């Protein structure tokens, strides 16, 4: 107990320390570095809590892809950073932020200090129906079956976020290639990494998607790894950044949510309602949805990081 307790306490203290350091960091770039570190430590904390699914998602999406997004944002904001750092929010704003932060802290503290006994859980009910779905991982079952509507809406929100990013482009660039450019000045090392890593990364991404049926993993984590490989190849200049208006790009982006929706509506006709799977096809249907979703997630995350279109469309 003692060694594990020391490890956990140290990890918890480190998470809090890095969080404070991130807030207090002098520049946006330093804060992003702190945020990525915070995410990786948080992933370790989730592993210690035996929530490996959450840990994988935190590391791949919360820390990795979000970190890349924030780095590009910090780079764009650099010219205005000094000016905005000098600005101070008004007193009522600061008071409101403080009160809200204390309220959230008090709520969380109350939950931890006075836990309900017995703790409310749906775990046993989630486990009962796993054989019918042909899925061994309860988290995947929750995401893709019990709470499929949430997952579907989440993917639609991702699409909306991408459209939001694209909308930052001036009209004449609509449908053009994103601002991400291969950096010629980065030299040969990145080219080497861009050639060596993707074969490994693509296998790992597909493995994480596939193993999600029986062990921690799934569409979001696998998709994030595939997106990272795509971005690496694009930044290394080995593969052109696609124009956002091209038909195949748009098709890949909407394929995941579209297939999910189609299966959902088919649920009206076949079994007994929206997003319900017929018992004998549950497993194949879930695999089809997961595979297509993974492709769409990879494309959406990659293009989110690539940023708004910055070049005119070549016709």
């Amino acid at each position, binding site marked *: 107990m003692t060694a594990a307790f020391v490890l956990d306490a140290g990890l918890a203290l480190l998470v809090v320390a890095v969080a404070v350091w991130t807030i207090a960091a002098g520049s946006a770039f330093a804060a992003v570095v702190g945020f990525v570190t915070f995410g990786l430590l948080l992933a370790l904390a989730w592993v210690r809590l035996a929530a490996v699914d959450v840990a994988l998602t935190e590391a791949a999406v919360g820390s990795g892809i979000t970190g890349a997004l924030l780095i590009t944002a910090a780079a764009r904001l650099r010219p205005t950073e000094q000016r905005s750092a000098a600005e101070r929010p008004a007193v009522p704003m600061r008071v409101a932020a403080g009160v809200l932060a204390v309220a959230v802290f008090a709520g969380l503290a109350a939950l931890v200090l006075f836990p309900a006994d017995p703790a409310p859980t749906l775990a046993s009910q989630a486990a009962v129906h796993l054989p019918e779905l042909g899925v061994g991982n309860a988290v995947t079952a929750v995401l893709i079956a019990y709470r499929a509507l949430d997952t579907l809406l989440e993917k639609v929100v991702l699409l909306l976020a991408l459209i939001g990013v694209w909308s930052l482009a001036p009209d004449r660039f609509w449908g053009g290639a994103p601002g991400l450019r291969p950096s010629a000045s*980065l030299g040969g*090392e990145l080219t080497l990494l861009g050639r060596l890593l993707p074969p490994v990364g693509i296998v790992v991404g597909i493995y994480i998607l596939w193993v999600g049926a029986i062990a921690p993993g799934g569409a979001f984590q696998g998709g994030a790894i595939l997106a990272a490989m795509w971005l690496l190849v694009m930044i290394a200049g080995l593969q052109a950044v696609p124009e956002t208006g091209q038909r195949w790009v748009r098709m890949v982006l909407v394929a995941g949510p579209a297939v999910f929706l189609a299966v959902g509506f088919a649920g009206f006709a076949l079994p007994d309602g929206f997003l319900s799977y017929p018992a004998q096809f549950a497993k194949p249907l879930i695999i089809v949805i997961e595979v297509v979703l993974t492709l769409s997630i990879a494309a959406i995350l990659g293009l989110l990081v690539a940023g708004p279109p910055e070049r005119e469309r070549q016709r």
Partner: protein
Amino acid sequence: MRILLDIVTVVAVSAGAVFFLAGTVGLLRFPDSLSRLHALTKADNLGLGLVVLGLLPQADGVLAALKLVAVWLLAQLAGATVTQLVARAARRGGQRA
């Protein structure tokens, strides 16, 4: 046999931790970017390598052991590339303390 493997683990992981400690001290204490990177690579290569080496006897099965080695190799590849990139950026941007 078991106890022998455990000793190997303890010795190798401890040695790895020493390299991590030395690398971190170097990162904090060295005067310029290039020598700080130099310190960091010791933690990446030798530190992680020794930790993986020490964990190999504890892995259940060949597959798990291979995964550990793969982690080390991938960290090597990423570490070496990023070190080159950071060093290039540091040289171009002028040495800032």
